[in-house]
Structure formats: C-alpha cells, structure tokens
C-alpha cells in the first residue's frame, strides 16, 4: 500500500504496510539512519522524532499515524546542524558513544518549543524517558540550558 508522508519538509511516497513502525520506514525505506533503534518498546527514547512538533517514539508508532502530519527527524532539525541544541551539544561535547543523542536532542527540541526557558526540573522531567548508557545526563542538561540561553 502506498503511504504518502511529509518528512523533513519533503513529500515521500512509500510502499509499506500501514502498521509498519515509523522507525522502520525512516531508517530502512527512506534511508534516514539518524533515528536509532534502542529497545523497540518506547522505553529508551533513542527513536524519538517529531510529529507536528510533538516528540514521539517512532519504534511503536505505526506509519499510518504519521499520514497527513509533518515528520521531523534529527536530520531535519536543521539543514546544517545549526539548531541551538545541536550547537550546544557540540560546544559542550555532550555525546560519548552518541547512540542516544539524536533522541535526546529531539526530545529537548520539543521541550524548548513549548518551554523556551525551562527550569532544571522541567528539563529533567521532560528528558526522564531518554536513557543514556554512557551517563551524559549532566552535560545534556547543561547543553539544554545553553541552547535556551540560561
């Protein structure tokens, strides 16, 4: 079945089962590997993307849910890596292994879109569902604050 999607500002027609997880479509059909497969159960946050600006776990989201909505992946957050969060991530050398960081940034971007000047508690509660096995949480929080100009 052909499914029409809007991904990072472009229209894409894909021939997939409507129940296929959006993550599979992004990575395996559209070749956008920045969104990672972590747990497959919405427990780790590595697969976080945006649907109409809201952070969503793409590993448990059937592609049919994304029809008619704007999908943004880490590749589409900015054209050249210039999003304030991406710059802050580089400046503070946040990643260690890096596997979870795309999801961390996408969640943080959804937070800043709603709360441009978040408190430490708001940062922590919003990012509580994004796991980092390297334990970069302190730098993540610092980078979110830097991106927010705090």
């Amino acid at each position, binding site marked *: 079945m052909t499914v029409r999607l809007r991904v990072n500002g472009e229209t894409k027609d894909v021939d997939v089962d409507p129940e296929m997880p959006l993550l599979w479509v992004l990575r395996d059909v559209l070749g956008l590997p920045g969104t990672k497969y972590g747990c497959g159960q919405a427990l780790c946050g590595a697969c976080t993307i945006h649907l109409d600006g809201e952070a969503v776990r793409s590993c448990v989201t*059937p592609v049919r849910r994304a029809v008619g909505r704007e999908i943004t992946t880490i590749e589409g957050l900015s054209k050249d890596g210039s999003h304030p969060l991406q710059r802050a991530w580089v400046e503070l050398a946040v990643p260690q292994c890096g596997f979870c960081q795309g999801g961390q940034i996408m969640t943080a971007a959804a937070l800043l879109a709603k709360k441009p000047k978040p408190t430490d508690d708001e940062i922590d509660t919003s990012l509580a569902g994004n796991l980092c096995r390297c334990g970069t949480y302190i730098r993540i929080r610092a980078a979110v604050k830097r991106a927010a100009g705090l």
Partner: protein
Amino acid sequence: MSTSRGRFAILVTLLACGTPAAVLPPRVTPPLPDQLRPPSAFDGILDRAERSRALFAEASRVLFHPRCANCHPSGDAPTQRDDLERHDPPVVRGDHDQGVPGLMCGSCHQDDNAALARVPGAPKWQLAPREMAWQDRSAHQVCEQIKDRSRNGNRSLDAVVEHVAHDPLVGWGWHPGADRASAPGTQAEAGALVAAWVATGAECPPEDRKKGVSR
C-alpha cells in the same frame, strides 16, 4: 438471658415458624474473580439503600482493578502492572494530565494496543485528574468523589453512567492487550451496575478506612 442467647432464641423461633424473607440475610451469590455480578444478583437485598451500597461495592471491583487504578494515582505519576509499580519511563502528569513537553502520554501510547511492543493504547490516553485519584482511597471516598461534580469532571450521575458504559478509554480496561489481566466482567456489565447504583439512590458505602488499592 444474655444478648447472644436471646438472639439465638429468636432465630430458632423464627426458623420454627417459617422465616419471613425480609428477616433472612441477603442472598447474594459470592463474586467470582473475573466476573461481575449483574444488578439482579442484588435483588435479594430488599433495603434500597443497602442494595445501592452493595451495587457500588461490586462496581468498585472495576474501579480498583489495576487496569483502571493505575491511571487514577494519588500523586503525579501513573503506575503500571498489577502491583501498581512506578511507570517506566518515569512520566509525570504535567499541566493537563497528558504528560510534559517531550514526554507526553501520546509520545508512546497509540490509539490502540501496540501488540509487538506490548505498549497499551486507547484513544485519548491520559491520567485521570488529580481530584479523581482512586489509589490510597477507600470505597467510601471514591464513591463520594464520583458523585461530586467538582471532582468528577462536572458530570451528572447519568453522565457518569455513560462514561463507565461507553468511554473508549474506560473500555480499554477490558481489552488491555498483551498478557495484562482484564478488569472483571465487561464494560457493559460495569455500566449496568453503575446505572443500577444510580437508580437506587447512589448510596455510598460507610467509611471504613480500608483503602481500595494502594502501592
């Protein structure tokens, strides 16, 4: 004659004379774990208020079931599984009972159960408002909450019946997916019990300080 001996003598006399039905203890079939007794099962309780309280007690087996109580927490975080464990990931209710930016209920929960990932889902997945907490409350307290429009989403009792009987999110309790245990009975049966409770005066059980469900 002591009081207990006196009561025994009266009972023997009544039995010997043919006991009036009104004097007999209510004959109500005992509950089964996975089923709800229909309103007619309580017809043997002739006192209307008592029958109403018994109907609520039966309906409360649904209210306090983990499938329902997990999203009626007394704090700001939902629980999960049958032992009301802390929700993983550690979400909080946020300003509108739907999570916080970046970690909304809908970030993970879909409109239906995700079979392979085992993530439960139903339309408008969210926490019950704080004033509708059922965890750490007695059946009496929950009953009074349900009748109070300031704590029940401004619902009339008829709207409460409709909510229990037909709301899709409530209905998820009987279709939880994966290996999760369903609430007892069916949604229609729960709705019928609540309707019968309302029809008999919506009486609340007495306060006994026993919590319906707690972590």
